[in-house]
């Protein structure tokens, strides 16, 4: 079952086209992500789906509702974290939670939410005195206050330190484990890869690819790489007999070896072969193609430049 269905969404501002013909569906219980560079149209899309911006063309259904016509009924059931918003400067964290709880029929225990987001000590801190990351976490807490079936998180980890980012990823996975659906946007490819069940890659107002991250990466047809160093002479010949290996590159000067392979079992076979042949190696690591490579391949550009 789909909780979101978008078909042929168009949106422009003046003569600037922000979204040009976007269609996708989000299934119940998945973490769906949109990734793309700045100005790709992610916020415009997510806010049209939330009912906060009117689309110029196209159909949108969210939880069976039309976000423009049934906006209030829809907002009762969804949780929203906006990319850009604020609270009154002098409003305290606890007051903000109480206030927002009062807007909904169904409400979660706001103290438990603050606890989960590590904001318990900030309960009496005014909004203006919070750090960027704390504000971000407060907005995530506010997005969960009505126990929504569907949560929208626009740039959820922008401005968070690596630790808070991982913490937030865990939280998003928890939300999904409770049977809820998450629609998020990010411009961190790594985040999309780690977190999302399916990812839409957006560029210049269009979806250029949409699939599970591993499928997107696999569809590139790029091999995995195993990189290590050896001392002394290196003979690549026996490596070609290992199942899955496609290519071996050895630079004899510094002893660096790169083995390319395709199969899932390839790494296991390679390591077994190296041990049985008694090859001494150092600094072994693997390099996998990532969504960055997918984006580069599809658009000919780096995601950030």
């Amino acid at each position: 079952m789909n909780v979101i269905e978008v078909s042929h969404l168009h949106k422009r501002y003046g003569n600037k086209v922000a979204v040009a013909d976007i269609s996708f569906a989000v299934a119940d219980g998945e973490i769906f992500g949109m990734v793309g560079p700045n100005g790709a149209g992610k916020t415009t899309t997510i806010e049209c789906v939330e009912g906060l911006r009117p689309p110029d063309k196209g159909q949108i259904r969210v939880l069976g509702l039309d976000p423009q016509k049934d906006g209030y009924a829809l907002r009762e059931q969804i949780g929203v974290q906006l990319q850009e918003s604020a609270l009154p400067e002098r409003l305290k964290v606890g007051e903000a939670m109480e206030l927002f709880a009062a807007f909904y029929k169904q409400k979660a225990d706001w103290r438990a939410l603050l606890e989960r987001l590590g904001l318990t000590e900030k309960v009496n801190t005014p909004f203006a005195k919070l750090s960027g990351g704390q504000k971000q976490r407060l907005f995530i807490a506010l997005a969960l206050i009505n126990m929504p079936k569907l949560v929208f998180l626009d740039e959820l980890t922008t401005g968070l330190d690596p630790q808070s980012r991982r913490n937030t990823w865990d939280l998003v996975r928890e939300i999904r484990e409770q049977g809820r659906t998450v629609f998020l946007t990010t411009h961190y490819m790594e985040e999309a890869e780690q977190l999302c069940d399916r990812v839409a890659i957006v560029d210049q107002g269009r979806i250029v690819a949409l699939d599970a991250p591993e499928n997107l990466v696999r569809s590139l047809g790029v091999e995995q790489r195993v990189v290590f160093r050896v001392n002394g002479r290196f003979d690549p010949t026996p490596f070609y007999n290992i199942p899955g290996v496609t290519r071996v590159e050895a630079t004899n000067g510094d002893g660096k070896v790169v083995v390319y392979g395709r199969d899932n079992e390839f790494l296991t076979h390679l390591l077994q072969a190296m041990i049985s042949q008694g090859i001494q190696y150092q600094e072994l690591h693997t390099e996998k193609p990532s969504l960055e490579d997918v984006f580069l391949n599809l658009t000919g550009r780096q995601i950030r430049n």
Partner: protein
Amino acid sequence: MRGLWKLSQTEFKLFLREPAAAFFILAFPVLILLLFGSIYGNDPSDLFNGYGSVDISVPSYTAMIIATSGLLSLPIMLTTYREQGVLRRLRATPIRPQLILTAQVGVIFLMTLIGMILMVIVGKLVYDLRFSGSLLNVLVIFILGSFSFFTLGFVLAGIVTTARMAQIVAMVLFYPMIFLSGAAIPREILPENILNISKILPLTYLVTALRGVWFGADLNEYLTEIGIMLAMLIVGLVVSVYTFRWE
């Protein structure tokens, strides 16, 4: 209606935490009443038809409080919320926009009323303030005046693009208006040509009607003033519906 009560309570607390707005609406009128009272006293004077200077000042300062609320506080608060993205965030919840505005207007109206009551209490205690009107008539003019100035504030917030601009425009309208309309200084000491200018200022009509009913006049003696304020209210409402923006 869910959320309205909590939102109003919250806005009330936030208002009191905003030192400038709270000062100018709640404390400043009392302070200048005490200041001028200590200079001029409240003895009956021929200039003021047998009333004292404090007696005359209380309804006039009440008009000034209304102008402060409507022209300064309300548009600055609204445009700041809009600029910072507070309104955007509220709009992502199921609360109806009318309720957000109702809470804002309700709180600012309550503060205006408290501002007037504080002044009356201090005037009564310190200067034995005289009041010879009907409380009901005063309330009618007070409410009509307040709401017509609040819609003016909404129009202002709708027209300007930034909070900074709202502040500047509000000041430019506010200061000449309170001095020329007789709200801040008694009209009796203003020269004739200034009084002519003051006829184009909406606050003048509020001061006139409020002073009139304060000292016992009937509402139907001020139909012109009431008509002008009603017109302001209606035109203001229509314009603000069209110019209101969330972001």
